[in-house]
């Protein structure tokens, strides 16, 4: 009988020939990721109930990525303890200040198409861009590390078929937000989103991470773009040995179908108080901003930095606006430095920092009451970046950069027009 991609993935991890949606199965994930935010607390709790070892330590990835560099004594101690405990527990991979976990494990060739990755952190769905499935489990990840297995309910799959070619200035963020306009949390809850269709070929490999990562904020279990030739070639270059396509069977059952014609999309933005409150950028034009942030696991890729750099060419960040740029991994930072991108950012008035999750959850660059930021990060709940009386808008790297240039929310197309009439 035909199976969806996620049914195939979970059947393999459960050691069964097949599983059906709705079934509860015990699985052994291919990889388990935990940031330093939680790792010491997890180990302490495990030791408190007598679990002294991890079942499959070679599968465990620990990353110091949330408070980098440490800017508090508590953070310094947490990072020190994380390094110590990672050694004591013999984890397979320890990344210290090398980037944000989700893009980092792809960059280091640790993720294969069809893998099942269990994570402590919410936005692990990012890895769906590599054709794998990442699911967050929060504190339960601790027990998973001790026992090596976890129960999961096999989700139903919603197929999102993308067709056509997006217009200039429209990217993966806009496609994710358009998906949110089609699905509410009742549709998405407990379900996996699978993106398919000829429009996928229009989405560069790293942009697919943005597309999948943001779907967790609709309330989906996860999201995936089944690996195609583009993904397999990119993964092979990253050191994945013989990456193979893993896809749903042609006659697999999808619980819901959504079709999006990419050629009809325009730049979109999430407005407070939730990522799912989606508006057209053109409808928000003129909303003044004080801060702009380009980074997080949902952006900060070399492709996003290059696109922002190209848009910024010849412009300065608007006086009174603070543009913060954080490449998502150290390698990305290095490449952007070598290409002169970071120098041009700072020349335009931006501040560039080393890879960290920081601003996304208010761990860095907080906002005070009355301030407004447009950001490429993941969430915009009140208080997410400091004051509950600050406002956060979420948009693509192009939308964020364009807004930083003009000082109000606008799209990349507005910069082109402004360039033409000399108003910027």
């Amino acid at each position, binding site marked *: 009988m035909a199976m969806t991609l996620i049914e195939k993935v979970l059947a393999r991890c459960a050691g069964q020939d097949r599983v059906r949606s709705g079934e509860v199965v015990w699985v052994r994930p291919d990889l388990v990721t935990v940031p330093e935010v939680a790792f010491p607390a997890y180990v302490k709790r495990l030791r408190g109930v007598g679990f002294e070892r991890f079942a499959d330590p070679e599968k465990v990835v620990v990353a110091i990525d949330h408070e980098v560099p440490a800017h508090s004594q508590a953070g310094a101690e947490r990072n020190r303890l994380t390094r110590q405990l990672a050694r004591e527990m013999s984890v397979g991979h320890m990344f210290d200040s090398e980037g944000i976990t989700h893009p980092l494990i792809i960059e280091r060739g640790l993720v294969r198409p069809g893998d099942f990755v269990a994570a402590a952190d*919410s936005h692990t769905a990012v890895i769906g861009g590599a054709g794998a499935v990442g699911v967050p489990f929060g504190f339960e990840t601790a027990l998973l590390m001790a026992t090596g297995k976890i129960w999961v309910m096999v989700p139903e799959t919603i197929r999102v078929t993308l067709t056509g070619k997006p217009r200039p200035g429209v990217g993966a963020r806009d496609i994710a937000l358009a998906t949110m306009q089609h699905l509410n949390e009742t549709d998405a809850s407990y379900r996996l989103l699978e993106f398919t269709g000829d429009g996928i070929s229009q989405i560069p490999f790293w942009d697919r991470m943005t597309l999948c990562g943001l779907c967790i904020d609709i309330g989906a279990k996860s999201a995936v773009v089944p690996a195609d030739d583009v993904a397999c070639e990119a993964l092979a270059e990253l050191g994945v040995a013989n990456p193979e396509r893993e896809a749903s069977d042609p006659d697999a059952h999808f619980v819901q179908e959504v079709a999006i014609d990419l050629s009809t999309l325009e730049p979109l933005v999430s407005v407070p108080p*939730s990522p799912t409150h989606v508006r057209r950028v053109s409808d928000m034009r003129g909303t003044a901003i004080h801060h702009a942030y380009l980074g997080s696991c949902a952006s900060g890729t070399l492709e996003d930095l290059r696109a922002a750099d190209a848009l910024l060419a010849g412009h300065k960040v608007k006086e009174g606006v603070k543009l913060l740029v954080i490449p998502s991994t150290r390698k990305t930072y290095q490449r952007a430095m070598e290409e002169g991108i970071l120098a041009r950012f700072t020349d335009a008035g931006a501040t560039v920092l080393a890879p960290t999750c920081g601003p996304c*959850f208010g761990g860095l660059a907080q906002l005070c009451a009355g301030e407004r930021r447009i950001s490429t990060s993941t969430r915009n709940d009140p208080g*997410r970046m400091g004051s509950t009386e600050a406002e956060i808008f979420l948009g693509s790297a192009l939308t964020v950069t364009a807004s930083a240039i003009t000082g109000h929310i606008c799209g990349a197309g507005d910069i082109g027009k402004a360039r033409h009439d000399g108003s910027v």
Partner: protein
Amino acid sequence: MMEAYKGTCWKLPDGVSSDQLIGPSHVFDFEAETLRKHLLEEVDPRIAAEAKPGDVLVAGRNFAQGSNHSHPFIAMKAMGLGLLCRSISRGPYRLTIFMGVPILTITEEIYTALEHRSRIEVDFTTGDIKALDMGAEFHAEALPLHLLEIVTAGGGFEHAKAQEQEQNPQ
């Protein structure tokens, strides 16, 4: 067996987010005694100050939406609170059970009927709900047995340890 929860009903609206349950500034803190002081402080500070073991949060749709943070459920467990909600997505649903906080999903009718700060009794094992001040009774579907076992054991760690001891008695 888990005894019925008997206490005050604290009603919450639809869409209370994970960040509203406990603000992201506490993301690095996993100490229950600290977290319980901040539970829902932006929504209703009386809950952290006045709620007692046996009290029940009665929430609307899409409870704890947003980041998959464990912190609110660590606080709720430490405070001895139960949870009724109209709906909850998979991440927080799992965390509720894993932390040993009993939960039932309820209908709109039950949600509407239950009054803020009224007296309530909930048997999470059977799904029976009594609105004591109104003299009304309702029923919701109880947790599947394998999840109820985790909650009854006190949470995922305790359940796993008990299972291990059962399989390998000293």
